[in-house]
């Protein structure tokens, strides 16, 4: 199962990487005569309103959709982790201030806030990415702060402290690595969600704009002409759904595999262990 999901993700990333290089040059040139031709051997997924090949537009668009999403998640994760670690190590005041800021961020509906911000920044793919990073980090920071708090109460953390290790070392070597599990699942699932959000921003016109074939933008364009060619909207829709699912499943699988404790199965040497009295 894990390998199936991983292959799907690898294939998607590969497409995103090399897609634009192997796509025929005609992918961006419109030829009105070919408009809305149904799927055939020449055009596997048919053509759109301007006669462009839907399949190749999708392939080229993968780069915008997937890479932008990875960028967004990476961006807000770095900020979120930094904020959480700063809050956990910086003392009470720093902790309180940072967490109140997070709470304020969490109180706003993220997509609406992102739409507003992207619009203020002038619209387009870049501003959409910045807007999603800006709305995303408080979730990571807040979640991680809680997990850090919980992990720092484990006996082995107390042991590391008693050994006299410095605060930074205890945080970086012991607490943080044992807290990131939760985030890894979140990251993978988030990539899917961000692809959706990016599409949503494109769809309402504050994200990527034509002729950029970002998948949301493709849906946006196609939505104006569903009656003439269902395949035009169907193809990017399926692509989005598939990608979102693949990343969500990846998150689940990663969680089980990355944790050495979860990896131990029935035969684990938990023998000799008795419940504490």
């Amino acid at each position, binding site marked *: 199962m894990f390998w199936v999901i991983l292959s799907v993700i690898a294939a998607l990333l590969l497409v995103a990487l090399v897609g634009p290089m192997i796509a025929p040059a005609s992918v961006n040139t419109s030829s009105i005569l070919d408009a809305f031709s149904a799927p055939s051997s020449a055009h596997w997924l048919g053509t759109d309103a301007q006669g462009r090949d839907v399949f190749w537009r999708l392939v080229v668009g993968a780069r915008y959709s997937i890479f932008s999403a990875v960028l967004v998640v990476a961006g807000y994760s770095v900020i979120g982790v930094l904020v959480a670690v700063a809050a956990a190590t910086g003392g009470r005041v720093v902790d309180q201030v940072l967490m109140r800021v997070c709470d304020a961020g969490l109180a706003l509906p993220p997509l609406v806030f992102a739409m507003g911000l992207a619009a203020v920044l002038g619209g387009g793919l870049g501003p959409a990415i910045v807007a999603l990073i800006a709305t995303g980090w408080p979730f990571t920071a807040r979640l991680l702060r809680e997990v850090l708090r919980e992990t720092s109460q484990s006996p082995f953390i107390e042991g590391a402290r008693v050994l006299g290790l410095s605060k930074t070392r205890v945080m970086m070597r012991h607490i943080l690595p044992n807290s990131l599990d939760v985030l890894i699942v979140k990251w993978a699932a988030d990539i899917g969600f961000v692809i959706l959000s990016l599409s949503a921003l494109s769809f309402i016109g504050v994200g990527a704009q034509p002729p950029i074939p970002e998948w949301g933008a493709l849906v946006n364009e196609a939505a104006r002409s569903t009656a003439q060619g269902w395949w035009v909207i169907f193809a990017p829709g399926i692509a989005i759904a598939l990608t979102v699912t693949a990343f969500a499943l990846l998150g689940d699988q990663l969680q089980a595999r990355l944790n050495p404790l979860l990896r131990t*199965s*029935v*035969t*684990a*040497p*938990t*023998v*000799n*262990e*008795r*419940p504490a*009295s």
Partner: protein
Amino acid sequence: MSPDESTPLLEVTQLSVAAPSPNGELPLVREVSLRVGRGERLAIVGESGSGKSLVARSIAGLNRKLTVSGSVRLGGRELLDLSSRQMNLVRRDRISMVLQDPMASLNPLMTVGAQVAEPLIIAGRGRRESRDAAIRMLDELGIPQARSAASGYPHELSGGMRQRVMLAAALIAEPELLIADEPTTALDVRVQRQVLELLHAVAAERSLTVVMITHDLSVVAGFADRVATMYAGRKVHEDRVDRLFAEPAHPYTRALLDAIPRLDDPGAELLPIAGTPPRPGALPSGCSFHPRCPRAVERCAVDVPATTFADDSLEFECHRPLLPLEVVAR
């Protein structure tokens, strides 16, 4: 079914338990046979993971998700063939279990009295009558002010008191067989002693048949009539309690006894058992214990020892047993 006097109350034959795993079935308990007569007390000892609890749970029909094979007969009646409904009836009327963790097995939202009375109510007895019986039972088990304690909740009680409540619930329906899985393990020394004394007294008063499971040999020294030692899913040794402690025939039982620090002999050297028990599915060749056995010879790594019945109470699986004098003399 009229129970014949000569058939033991509990007869376990070739009981095996296996867990499904990606590489086929993982054997956890391997062909264990036990016989416990009416009013007899058998202790099962062994290191953690040796399969003691699995044997206990199989007798009570609680291993529904694992593959259980062989035979478990209670008063001549086969239990492994019963449907889960029929097994529920057997557990209601004939077999009770007491477990290690009394808090996990008591419902925090039900009063103590209601929980003790529950088996009777399920059996169709009247509420009032059941409740009075529960209070009598709690009183018999030495719970102070049993009447008011019965209307309290489990969390208001100390660990030892909770274990008494568990015992009351286990005994109220007058079972024929009591299975106690580490009933004193989580308790303080003094409380452990109280629970043990109580268990001994009530079992004696009712001539209960008891199977007691523990990793602590000291706990069963005065309680059990016979002791069976398990290692890596097999019963490797069984004997009368006195002889097993004085002259353990199996080197593993001997090693377990030598590893215990003794209050009555503080100067004795503690001899740890080298290595660790094998994991299920990764058993050594020959005798499973040979890599850790101080008496092992070449043969032990090759041949699986067969069960030897030395006399009517001693049986063991070992190529190089430490035979008790009595047996050698014959």
